[in-house]
């Protein structure tokens, strides 16, 4: 059986609807692309200046001038376009991005996102994160449910500096699919082998549970 993390990524891939323009953040989100069916109609955007991202290439086949925002050597597809950084974020801020998938340090029950700074420990700068989080039409998070120490990443409020307010719509973790609702976190699906009690215990804020047993992934 595949790992819960792999199944989380495969499940997140089903979030992408035909015709969408999508930006996949550095880290786990970029792996989502491997789970899209061949020929699926979608446009992948990377903020350093490419729409129509093709497969990642090994160094010996890479083009030195063709990377994604995470520095991976990528390729083009028929219909790809190159552009500058102002044009790239014009797309983002003007609402042409249907979906972005981001990583997270913390997500609050109201949809606040913190994913760029841990004061005193990690402050490399926000890059394009604020604009993606604030302006993509739909923002979903891909993340382990807890940090390495086992502390919840889903919290009543974010303690870390925010990336953007009330931006997250849905969270895919290795334990569950959880929506941000006006009432707070609401469990929609659960990972195979997990119990509702386990997920609620690992969540740092009240978790609304479904009446019927939820679908698994």
């Amino acid at each position: 059986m595949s790992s819960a993390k792999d199944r989380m990524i495969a499940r997140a891939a089903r979030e992408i609807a035909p015709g969408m323009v999508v930006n996949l953040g550095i880290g786990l989100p970029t792996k989502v692309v491997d789970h899209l069916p061949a020929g699926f109609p979608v446009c992948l955007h990377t903020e350093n200046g490419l729409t129509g991202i093709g497969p990642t290439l090994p160094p010996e086949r890479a083009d030195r001038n063709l990377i994604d925002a995470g520095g991976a050597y990528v390729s083009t597809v028929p219909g790809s376009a190159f552009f500058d950084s102002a044009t790239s974020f014009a797309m983002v801020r003007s609402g042409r991005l249907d979906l972005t998938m981001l990583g997270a340090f913390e997500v609050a029950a109201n949809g606040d996102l913190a994913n760029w700074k841990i004061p005193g420990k990690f402050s490399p700068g926000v890059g394009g994160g604020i604009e993606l989080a604030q302006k993509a039409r739909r923002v979903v998070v891909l993340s382990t449910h807890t940090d390495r120490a086992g502390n919840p990443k889903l919290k009543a409020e974010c303690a870390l500096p925010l990336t953007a307010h009330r931006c997250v719509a849905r969270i895919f973790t290795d334990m569950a699919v959880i929506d941000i609702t006006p009432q707070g976190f609401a469990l929609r699906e659960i990972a195979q082998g997990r119990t509702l009690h386990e997920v609620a215990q690992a969540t740092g804020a009240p978790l609304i549970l479904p009446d019927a047993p939820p679908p698994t992934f």
Partner: protein
Amino acid sequence: MKLPDKTTTIEAAIARIKDGDSVMVGGFGVPGTPMTLIRALVDHGARDLTLIKNDANEPDMGIDHLLQSGQVTRLITTHLGLNAHAIALMNAGKLDVEFNAQGILAERIRAGGAGLGAVLSDIGIGTELAQGKQVVDLAGKPHLVETALRADVALIHAERADTFGNLAYTGTAQNFNPLMAMAADCVIAEVETLLPLGALTAGEVQTVGVFVDHVAELETLSEEYAVVQR
């Protein structure tokens, strides 16, 4: 993965326009003016339109057809000098005209397309064009708030396109087209040549297909596109 197909017909695209819509129209003189989309909008008949266009073309050309048919209530523009008919409508109080400095109109449209609220500029300070505009001090110097412009629809003319809506222009036919193609909720491009995906290289693209909603290939180029005999 495959980039989505956005091809349609001129008529199907124009059918989306409603009474009261704001409509950006590319072009500076003849080059880049989407003559066929404009004619289709006349046939379509939507009324009470706000047009945003650099100029009013010349009599019996381009957007003058929409002015003559009475479909336009308001025109946001920079210069009407070649269209005496437009000036007469304005002077008769039948057309509400807002004049902008040309580069400021370009920046206001681009700001709309870039998801900005406004740009601050010192252009026109102390002239009629500054009247009624909010002023912000930057390092002690007054600047005008030039608010972002967006429209319900943009009508674009491009020389070449692919089926995803990537566009390429030629000559001085760019003008306002690449800017307006960023700044409307529904961007419709008429194109002289529609190419399969990949025929327009990634480096040739001047308007990225992400901004474009509908692409329609022109069957013929009417006489309105030709060199004007003066």
